[in-house]
């Protein structure tokens, strides 16, 4: 199956390729850090800020666009 965000092959049991999956993992892992930095930040606001922050990787931005509204497990 093709990745939902690019033409690469999706990882087995996933809808994203290895790179977009890696970006998604980094995005989820960073939430705790941001939450602490702002003494509480909603997931939606977090995505919004990461998307516009300087230095955010392109694959992370792709994931945000695709997964906006996703909640942290």
């Amino acid at each position, binding site marked *: 199956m093709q990745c939902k965000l690019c033409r690469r092959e999706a990882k087995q049991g996933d809808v994203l390729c290895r*790179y977009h999956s890696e970006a998604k993992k980094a995005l989820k892992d960073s939430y705790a*850090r941001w939450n602490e*930095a*702002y003494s509480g930040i909603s997931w939606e606001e977090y995505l919004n800020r990461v998307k516009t*922050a*300087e*230095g955010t990787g392109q694959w*992370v931005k792709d994931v945000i666009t695709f997964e906006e509204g996703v909640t942290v497990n």
Partner: protein
Amino acid sequence: MPANFSDYSLIVCEKPDAARKVAEALAEGHPVITMMNGVEVLTFQRENSNYVVCSAIGHLYGLSDSFSQRETYPVFDLEWYPANLVDKRSRGVQKRIASIKRLAGDARSFINACDYDAEGETIGDNILRYACGGKEGVALRAKFSTLTKDDLVSSFAEAKAGSGSGLAKAGRTRHVLDFLWGINLSRALSTSVNSSSSGYKTISMGRVQGPTLGFVVRREVEIRTFVPSPYWSVTALFEKDGVRFEAPSSKGKFLRRSDALSTKAACEGKTGVVSELSRSVFKEPPPPPFNTGDLQKEAYRTFGLSPTKTLQVAERLYLDALISYPRTSSQKLPPSIGYRQIVSKLGGITAYAESSRELLEGSLSAKEGEKTDHAHPAIYPTGDHPRKVLGGYEAKIFDLVVRRFLACFGADAVRERISLKVDVQGNDFGLTGRRTLRLGWMKHYRKFSGAEDRAVPKLLKGDMLTVVRVDSEEKFELGPSRYNQSSLLERMERESIGTKATRAETIATLIVRNYVGGDPVAATDLGISLVETMDEYCPKIVSTELTRETERQLEDIEEGRSDGSEVIEQAITILLKQIETLKVNETGVGGEIREASVESSRSLNVIGRCPVCKAGNLVMIRSRKSGKRFVGCSNYSQGCRASAPLPQSGFIKATAKPCAKCGWPVVYVRRGRYPWRLCVNLNCEGKVGTRNAVQTLQKRS
């Protein structure tokens, strides 16, 4: 050749310019220039002996696999052939080889005077071996690092037979290894890609190319998956007796916004006291003289010049006898080059007169680095003055080399570091300044040294300061930065892959192949896909370990500790395994790379967002009907009719900035000598003046 000119020694040089320099330096009187079959030949006499100087134009022989089909692999039977049979772009090789063969027939002895390094040795060895009929073992070797008269005369007087054989063997082995890796991997990859589609696409991969691409791709993945973390900085603006200055909080980064805001609140409107004031004096020693890599990095830092271009310019300066041989690893300047004489001669050039005068007042001892090269010293100016006014990058690189050389003899610079700490309600703010007390070597190299002074206000410990304002700013941690051509070269050097002479070329090849692009260098989708595929099927190809190990083995050959055949056999064994894996997985490999390759070619033609529909991209298209190229919107099928004509000849590429007047993309056009930027919008406001002028001219005519 002059009549009755016989019983001569044949001198083989690497380039025509070098041949002329050699003849001019050794001849008693002027050398005689004659044309043989359209090839320049120089003859002269010295100490009652006759000499003939001929030259190559780079490699006259190249490796090939007996001209088999491009789909055939693996291939391990290689032969050296005249370069024109291997590469159709090699011009004039046939005539040159024929001339050398004719000259060799009547020669009584041979002297190899090609550049003294693995590449030069290979060029000379092949000519002596194939064009001169197996004279590589008996030919004398003249070794020189500059093309000045003195250096050339002494190198020919000391020429010995067989003294470059290790280098030649290493050079030839390197060519064989590169060819075996290059041809087999490229054919395997190209066949995989082409078997899964129509049309033909060449995918190349090489021994050094693979790991270098690996560096860029791994960095690219880090960048594209990077999530920055926020932090806050707190800076206070202080005032004392009308003098204001800013100082950041000594805590550095505040990882929580609340901490930053509370520090800001605690300091606002308060008074600060200078709690610490320290001064320390330190010495900065001169930098070592340039080796190839250091020169390339410095030229990139100061002029933005690519490593390839720097080496080309430096070679030109070497052929003009203005600097020493620029392909060297050495950071050493042996006294035998004649420090005093060179510095004194440089004093004849106005720009260096003062430095020269000052340095000659004392004894000269050069600052050296640790790196060595048994063939050549570090790069240094010969002291000869340019015969013509140098322009452009030649002038800049010459100036850089001369100033760096002069700086090596300078005294240590003495600088002072001043640290200041201000206490505001238990919160520290710090400021560090630097000033130069004695310029030392910086006097000669100042414009390139990059060391700047930073003033700190004159204050005393215990001084009270008014806090005018406190600012807190949200910032984000920076992710890893992309390599630029210079830092990529540095990484290759650090990992010991490639050679000083070939690293820049490897980077240039990756750019030409569209595996990487831009500056800083970013990996393209094709580059990422290639490394991803290699990582999955044959990781050795993109790993540094194998390449580094091969470099070590080549060094052993150069030093005479090992024989080339063993290294080649080992490489064949490894290659066979990799190729077998690629062959078994041909469909998978081909499919993945093909997709990326198509995507990559497509992205090359995109020149920017469509300003009309704002959804599609403006793409360069060539009409199948008329063959003309133009710009059209990728949303044509959805009804967007945005289009514009393009110049029909010359090279066109997209630029990052859209037109300031109309917002349409701007392209960079190179045709002839002067490139220009062109807004593709025919009705752009910015073109009104030009359009009116053209119309007026048309009316007049």
